[in-house]
């Protein structure tokens, strides 16, 4: 399938274009409306997301199943994989906007560009999910990063927020710089930026000895620094606890779900189309490398989460750990057997669906408690079961789902992952993962304990609006039922990378 040229591509690029247009529209509207009514801005942003969603579905239907188009001379590719991630990211953004509407810590005056930035970052993530060229990869990554820096530091007059932004950008800049260096090396080896071409040429070059395995290793490790920092994998995870803690909670939620998801999209596509050829992976034992990284990521994430007192920070570490679980699936990409590779991708995608609901749900509860009880600390959750039974119940469900207790979605997500990993004969990795999920119970249970087994200092009931519960149920219901329905499994089965 030869790549389309620019004009042809535009049709398929409609979702992204719409996002950009609405981003601009949001800014303009923000200038027009008065501060009081600045909700309108948010709703406009939501409308934009809606339009974009529609566009995505249309393009998808045009595309047809298991088809794919290379747009803009092969700069980006539109396929089922990309579509899935776009939808997921879109929903994540929508959720973030809704959170932000309910979050009290966000400054009212600045809403306009805030939503514009959200749309922009979504745009960048769309590109991340579909980039197939080194240049586009870099651009996408930077777009996302730059906007996220600003969002993370969005709370003016909040030292924590500024510090978060500062650390984030310093860390991000270095990481992406390193990555760019790695990209340049790859570019040098293959003489082209097109991933597919690189994938074809590298083996030959390795064979002919023009390129040494060490060179490839160095390049990949550098690139890993960039991608690893996006998905917060050890040893590139250290920014995330601080940033998550400092950033406004909706942004934390957004980063922990959307930017992680986008990172994985990029990760999978890059390694699969770039180094999909197993010879290259064998030459540098990429499988083992990823396996070790994943094992360390989940272990360290879980262990560091144990003593946390700040729920945001605890969830930050927990999301590091979950990144580790997801990496287990990524390890399977290095497996020679195509069936298992597909299983790996399917597992990651299914887990992301589950993770989307349970993690966002948990963060939403954090938002609510921060608003009502005014605390992000575990102590602030004491006796919540009596003060806000429904919210507490929802939180308990999210947390146990994150632990992976059966009949909650999290269990099925883990189930799919571990089944795939064991089928890939990575028993030790599966075992490490399982032990980790036992450990993770311990810190999730601490929150549950605070909510249910301990009593609050002030026992007045917290009141929430109907809308709050509606939004909450949007996350609770899937967290209970996703695993019990077949469609999501078959969906995740269908999505593959060519």
């Amino acid at each position, binding site marked *: 399938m030869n790549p389309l040229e620019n004009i042809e591509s535009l049709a398929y690029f409609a979702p992204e274009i719409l996002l950009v247009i609405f981003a601009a529209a949001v800014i303009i509207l923000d200038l027009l409306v008065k501060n009081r009514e600045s909700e309108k801005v948010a709703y406009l942003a939501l409308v934009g997301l809606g339009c974009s969603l529609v566009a995505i579905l249309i393009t998808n239907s045009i595309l047809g199943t298991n088809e794919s188009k290379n747009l803009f001379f092969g700069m980006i590719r539109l396929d089922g994989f990309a579509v899935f991630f776009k939808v997921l990211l879109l929903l994540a953004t929508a959720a973030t906007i809704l959170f932000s509407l309910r979050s009290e810590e966000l400054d009212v005056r600045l809403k306009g560009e805030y939503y514009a930035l959200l749309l922009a970052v979504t745009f960048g993530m769309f590109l991340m999910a579909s980039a197939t060229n080194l240049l586009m990869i870099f651009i996408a990554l930077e777009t996302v990063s730059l906007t996220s820096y600003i969002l993370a530091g969005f709370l003016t007059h909040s030292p924590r927020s500024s510090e978060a932004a500062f650390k984030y950008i310093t860390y991000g800049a270095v990481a992406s710089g390193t990555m760019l260096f790695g990209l340049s090396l790859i570019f040098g080896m293959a003489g082209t930026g097109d991933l597919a071409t690189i994938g074809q040429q590298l083996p030959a070059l390795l064979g002919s000895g023009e390129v040494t395995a060490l060179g490839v290793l160095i390049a990949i490790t550098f690139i890993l620094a960039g991608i690893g920092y996006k998905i917060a994998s050890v040893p590139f995870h250290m920014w995330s606890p601080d940033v998550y803690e400092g950033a406004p909670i909706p942004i934390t939620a957004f980063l922990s779900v959307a930017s992680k998801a986008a990172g994985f999209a990029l990760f999978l596509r890059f390694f699969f189309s770039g180094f999909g050829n197993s010879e290259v992976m064998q030459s540098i034992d990429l499988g083992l490398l990823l396996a070790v990284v994943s094992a360390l990521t989940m272990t360290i994430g879980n262990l560091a989460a144990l*003593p946390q007192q700040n729920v945001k920070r605890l969830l930050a570490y927990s999301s590091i750990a979950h990144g580790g679980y997801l990496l287990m699936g990524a390890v399977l990409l290095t497996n020679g057997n195509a069936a298992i590779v597909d299983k790996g991708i399917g597992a990651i995608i299914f887990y992301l669906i589950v993770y989307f609901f349970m993690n966002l749900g948990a963060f939403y509860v954090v938002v609510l408690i921060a608003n009502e009880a005014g605390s992000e600390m575990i102590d602030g959750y004491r006796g919540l079961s009596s003060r806000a039974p429904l919210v507490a119940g929802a939180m308990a469900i999210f947390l146990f789902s994150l632990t992976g207790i059966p009949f909650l979605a999290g269990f099925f997500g883990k189930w799919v992952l571990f089944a795939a990993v064991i089928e890939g004969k990575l028993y030790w990795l599966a075992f490490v993962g399982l032990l980790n999920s036992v450990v993770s119970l311990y810190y999730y249970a601490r929150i549950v304990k605070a909510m249910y087994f301990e009593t609050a200092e002030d026992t007045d009931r917290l009141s929430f609006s109907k809308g709050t519960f509606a939004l909450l149920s949007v996350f609770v219901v899937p967290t209970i039922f996703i695993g019990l329905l077949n469609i999501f499994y078959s969906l995740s089965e269908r999505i593959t990378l060519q």
Partner: protein
Amino acid sequence: MVVTLIGIILLCPLAAFAIFALFGLAKRSFPRQDLLSTAAMLVALVCSFILLREVVPDPEPHTVDWISIGKITFSMGFYLDSVTVIMLIVVTLVSSLVHIFSIGYMHGDPRYPRFFAYLSLFSFSMLFLVVSDNLLGIYIGWELVGLCSYLLIGFWFEKDSAANACKKAFLTTRVGDIGMFIGMMMLFAKFKTLSLYDGSENGIFTLVEGLSGTGDMIWLSIAGVLIFCGAVGKSAQVPLHTWLPDAMEGPTPVSALIHAATMVAAGVYLTARMFPILTPGSSLVIAYVGGITALVAATIAIVRFDIKRVLAYSTVSQLGYMMLAIGAGSYVAGLFHLTTHAFFKALLFLGSGSVIHAFHAMHAHHNDEHTNGEEHEHDDHSLVHEHGSEIPPDQDMRNMGGLRRKMPLTFITMLIATLSISGVPFIFSGFWSKDAILGGVLGRAMEWNSVHHYLLFGMALCAAGITAFYMFRLIFMTFFGEPRNQEMHDMAHESLWVMVVPLLVLAILSLPVVNKLWFNKDYIIRPDQPHVHAPQHAYVSPDTKTGDVDFGIVFFGISEAEAAEDEGGQDIGHADDAHHAAHELAHNIAMVLSIIVAGLGILLSWLFYHRRRFSAESVATKFSPVYNLFWNKYYFDEFYDGVLVALTVWKSRLFAKFDLSVVDGIVNGVATIVRQIFAAFIGFFDNRVVDGIVNRVAEVTWAAGGRIRRIQTGAIQTYLFVVLGGIVLIILIFRAL
């Protein structure tokens, strides 16, 4: 017909108990529980007598499949032969009499109805045990009577002594029962069934004949002995006899019914039932246990002052006799003594009961009687029971004396019983049964000319003498001489008729003529012992069954020779003269000797305790070591409490500690290793010590978390350093690979 009758016999007492239980749940009690239970027993008694004529020589068991899994079937059923009927009658008879006696004796007790309910439950269990045709059924009844004995010994549970005694009784017998159960397991493993008689040719008794070879014999002997262990426990044989004297803490009627006449005799009954599977080996063990018990218990009895304890030890010793008899192959003699003993011992107990009751006027009633302060101090509720608690005054023979004028009827009846147990010739049943045993043992001794049996005979003889001595000591101290405690004496009075009538009935039953009912010629057929043969050196033909007296002699004056003829005829056919000669001789000698020792015993105790020709005290001091040995009951209790019980408690404590320290300790060890692993790649150590698995592992992982936190310094440049360090590390490591 048979089934219906047995059904009635079993259900009546059970119903009596059930009614009590149901009313109890409804928080009230049936108006006249005493009459209800008594009536139930009387009905059962009548039925038993009707059953007497239902007995057929070689009956079929009436069974139903109780449990059936695949090929294996456990059946439950009744087996009605002469022995069963005899036991039925003995049990129902004594039980009914005790019921009646209790109406008077227990009158005014706050838990009066419950007492009768328990008696009914006991009677049911005992009867069930007797009629069962299979080991499982016997075991069930076996344990149930144990339970009832537990409940009844502890009837006045406010007394710590009673509370301890009942627990002791249950546990001690349970130890024996375990042996019995293991024996059952062995039999089951071998035969795949537990029913003894089975029409379809696969009951244990039919199967056991199939066994052959020494290996089988050893195995069978072990099984036999193990089953006998149950009997040792229940029938209070050495070394498990210690619970029976303590059991006297229970109300006296209970002692009469359970701990003299019926339950303790169940052991003998069991051994008799298992007669066919006994081998020479197991028989000898049984005989020795019986002999030793007879002697030891008798000697202990000499020095007791508590009237009930004297009787208790005499019971133990008499049970020893019965065991001895069965061990020595004198099947019929054993059962004969069982029945006679049941009556006269029950009589003795009830008599003593009436004496005790007579003294009660001056005491407040039982249950608040012994619960005074100083007993409260040592109710430390330890598993180690304190025993030999000081004798309650109304049971102390040293407070009695000269009662024969006060309570003539009691005196007469008890005298009859005493004469009977002491084996005073010809008009008392005890004499005949005891003589039968002695003759049987001596007979086998002479026939097999085995040293063992001569020795056993010796023991039995001594025991007989001693029995006569201490029984008359009891009589003299209680009824003769001058009252030692005047006020108590003045209070004493003849008992109510409800209490006296049973005494009279039992007294009549202690006369031999009554026992003629069933101990006439070959009413009881001694079952075949396929594996017991006279040893080679014996001078009689190997396959001859031996060892029984024929009660034709006793009741119908048939000459010895004829008796021998009959007995021979009872055999497989050829009787030979040597064999007869042995038996004539044995019986003559045994009879003469037993009369002599009995006479001696009585004479001595007359000299000691009536004429006061010698003083017991001086003798006691002269032979103080022996005396102490007797007085301390050969230190059995001390041994058990000091060693066994203490050991158990200690072990349990140990285990509990183990649970806390070691098991968790192991896990802690694991935890330490886990910690090492974390430390290895995190680079720190955690030295805190915590116990408990979960919080330990938690601590460890937790600490690991803490370590990781330390890396998270908050300084951005550290983070960047980690990033680049990570990159370099990865490259270096995977370069090497």
